[in-house]
């Protein structure tokens, strides 16, 4: 049985093709102005990668902020639901999920049998995850993907109260003026985000088996800050950005 999951996110649209429960194709593209069109493109690319024709697809499920826009999906599932299913696929025992996107962050608590026990997401004034680090990277004149490795080399902790991007940016600028090493600033940025995210995790209740999903999961520096804050091991799947799309494809299997 072939199913497809589409995750229509603020920044990227992801598609995953599942064949009998195995990932056979995936695609990631920037979300354009028309979420449905982007979803269609990601869908085609993923099918091509999987060498599958549209007729073979039994069911398509969409998730993510733009899920209702994806007209060709038979069913939708919330970001919370797809994150839970996707994370469980990689880490069958996971009970606390951190799901970070470009603009949004979420913490989800699961029951022993994988049902959603509680969830929390960031509020308007909280610094989001991915795009926040990116704009701080800009202020540091560093490539976003360099932020992780950079911060791993920090020597001193600098407290930063990263409530809002505008304020944080001016804090970064004054740290630069004070000749604070880039490594320490990068670490401070990650600590700032991590502080907001771990607050959210504590709101739902911190359990012992954690997984981090979403694009920012690729940022090792951020993951390290989170581990230090929460004092727990955090598992990150290999392709963290595809986990929600995968969760939607898994749900498609259930309903097909």
């Amino acid at each position, binding site marked *: 049985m072939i199913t497809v999951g589409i995750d229509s996110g603020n920044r990227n649209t992801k598609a995953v093709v599942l064949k009998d429960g195995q990932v056979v194709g995936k695609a990631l593209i920037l979300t354009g102005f028309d979420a449905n069109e982007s979803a269609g493109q990601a869908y085609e690319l993923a099918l091509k990668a999987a060498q599958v024709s549209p007729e073979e697809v039994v069911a398509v499920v969409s998730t993510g902020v733009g899920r209702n826009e994806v007209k060709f999906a038979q069913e939708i599932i919330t970001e919370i639901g797809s994150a839970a299913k996707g994370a469980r696929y990689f880490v069958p025992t996971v009970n606390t999920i951190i799901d970070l996107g470009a603009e949004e962050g979420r913490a989800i608590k699961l029951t022993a049998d994988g049902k959603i026990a509680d969830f929390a997401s960031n*509020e308007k*004034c*909280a610094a989001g995850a991915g795009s926040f680090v990116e704009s701080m990277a800009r202020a540091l004149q560093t490539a976003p993907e360099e932020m992780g490795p950079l911060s791993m080399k920090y020597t001193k902790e600098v*407290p*930063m*109260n990263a*409530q809002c991007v505008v*304020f944080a940016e*001016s*804090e970064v*600028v*004054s*740290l630069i*003026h*004070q000749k604070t090493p880039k490594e320490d600033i990068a670490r401070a940025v990650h*600590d*700032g985000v991590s*502080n*907001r995210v*771990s*607050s*959210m995790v*504590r*709101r739902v*209740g911190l359990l012992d088996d954690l997984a981090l999903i979403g694009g920012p999961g690729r940022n090792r520096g951020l993951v390290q800050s989170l581990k230090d*804050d929460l004092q727990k091991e955090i598992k990150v799947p290999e392709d963290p950005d595809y986990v929600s799309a995968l969760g939607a494809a898994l749900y498609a299997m259930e309903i097909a």
Partner: protein
Amino acid sequence: MFTQFKEWYEKRHDYAMEWKEKTGGKIIGYFCTYVPEEILYAADVLPVRVLGGHEPQDVTEPHIFGMYCPFSRDVLAQGLKNKFFYLDGITIAQSCLHIRQAYTSWDLHRPTEFSYYLPMPHNVQSDHSRTFLRSELQQFQEAVEKWTGKKITDVDLDRGIDIVNTNRRLLKQIFELRRQENPPLTGQEAMYLVLSSQMTDKREHNKALLELLEQLPQRKLNRPTGERLMILGSENDDIPFTEMVEQVCEATFVIDDHCTGTRYFWNESVKDEDRLLEIANRYVDRVPCPTKDWPQRKRLEHIQNLIKDYDVQGVIVIQQKFCDPHELDIPAIQKSLKERGIPTLFLEFDVTAPLGPFRIRVEAFLEMMRQEDLF
């Protein structure tokens, strides 16, 4: 000269634990300066104020919703992180809603053997608040007696009143020295004095203040006084900010209106045969927190008097982010200062003050003041 006071503030927990070991007495944490410390001293209990740690934290999110002030969350974090594990009791006197939540969440999640919410009246401009507070103090006293197992006599109350009044008097005498053209102490040093008085046994603190008072008149600070500033607003124990203004921007804080400053100690109680009424009157008559400053805004006049007495040239108005009571007074305060030609700078404080951006603003403010001097 100020090392002791600074150390008391920085090592407040070490002090408290040593005190406990030495005396075997009980320690109570209090969350607001309307708590009648006189009664606690009368009961031989040590009251220590619970202040924040000025570090970003991630433990209070489940307990206090984000629109309440960072100070209240920082205070609660101290409890949740067990920094005050040695407390035998906690108490609050009714003031603002924000800090109240730090107290109630602490009560729920870090229970101590004694916990007391004192409904301090808000309508301090009505004389009925005196008799009402007196009756509440009576109940508070009875609860403390029940807790410690020891009756509080009038002699005890007199002792408690004397300890606290002496501390107020000495602090005020030292603050008066700041009226001088070149004050013998900085704003930062003055801040350590008041903060440490909230964290130590006042008998010991009084001794240290007396010694200081002997030395201070001869002291010369090897620094220009610069602009004479006042700082006013919410709770403030932001040492790095004060340090930055005085050391980097070269101005001097000569007076303040904070509950971690003059509001805490400005007036002594006035002798009355009825000790509890004496204490009640003191808290009704003290410089009010904005939560209690209505229908008239009496603080406006008090601030103007301080400005005159301390020859203040400019005022930095600060508030803890989301501090509604202060936000409700600040436009009126700024208006009244403006009418008298006093320049003001408004800053919003968080758990940590962003020193870089604030420095730019303070420097611009001082530059503006200097410019005005030219004309």
